[in-house]
């Protein structure tokens, strides 16, 4: 195993252990503390902010510059379908197909 892989695996184990600890906390605390709904809302919103930023970065950038067009257009098609409440299978297939066809048409 390469040194870089060992670092990635250690970080992954840290994520796995930490996630288990977070899951354990709720039931262990339930009887003892009252978790304010506001804190709960903030945690949920923070997760959505991180994920939205991740979507934007992976859709629009490649390294330090802008991505070529097929990917953002494919994601936009998927987004419109998801917004229209299409099933996830359709969202995924339409996004990938749009991206692939554009790459084939404008190499």
């Amino acid at each position: 195993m390469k040194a870089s892989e060992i670092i990635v695996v250690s970080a992954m184990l840290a994520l796995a252990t930490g996630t288990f600890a977070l899951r354990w906390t709720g039931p262990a605390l339930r009887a003892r503390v009252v978790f304010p709904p506001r804190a709960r809302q903030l945690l949920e919103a923070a997760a959505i902010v991180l994920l939205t930023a991740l979507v934007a970065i992976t859709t629009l950038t490649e390294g330090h510059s802008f991505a070529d067009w097929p990917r953002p257009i494919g994601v936009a098609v998927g987004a419109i379908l998801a917004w229209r409440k299409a099933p996830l299978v359709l969202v995924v297939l339409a996004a990938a197909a749009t991206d692939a066809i554009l790459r084939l048409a404008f190499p």
Partner: protein
Amino acid sequence: MRRAIVLMCLSVGLIGVSYGASAVAAGFPAWLPVVTASLVVAGSSEFLFVGIIAGGGNPFAAALAGLLVNARHVPYGLALPDVLGSGWRRVLGTHVMNDESVVMALSQPDAARQRGTYWMSGLGVLLCWPLGALLGAGAATFVHNTNAFGLDAIFPSVILALILPALKDKSTRHAALAGTAVALAVSPFTPAGLPELLALAGAAIILLRKPKQEAEAAR
């Protein structure tokens, strides 16, 4: 309810396929998404983890970002009815606590059905998520230029489809837009992985302002 759980597991498996495929396409060995899927079992944090490292970010910064996304399991555990049991059951039951199992259990009217639904959907996800990742990783190992098949559009589309319902909330949406604007603005100048974390700083300004406005509106 059984039918709903099976459909849910199938769609989790499908997301797993795109997860395994995008991880391998990004240069990770095929076993990594599969092992991660079994040990972490929290899709969005794994996508974030893999995405940040693939972009060249520090793996521990990626783990930290993943833990932040997984912090929602604390309120989940607080909201969860008594379904876990004790001893090894409690350990396994804790491991299968996820968005799907908690939501499905909470939708049930009585304790017995809550327990059954929680365990069925939790174990279903624990099975389907790594299995999907395995299929996706296997497929991507044999196909070299995965971009040509549009696979690079799958990952952001899946996440977007999953977070879309949460973005209907106005303050969450504004915070997400502000955070994303910050992330995109800094991305040309910052190391990979940092833009997503800086998005939180941008969003904090909007999120923490809210109660004050509500207090003023109440006056």
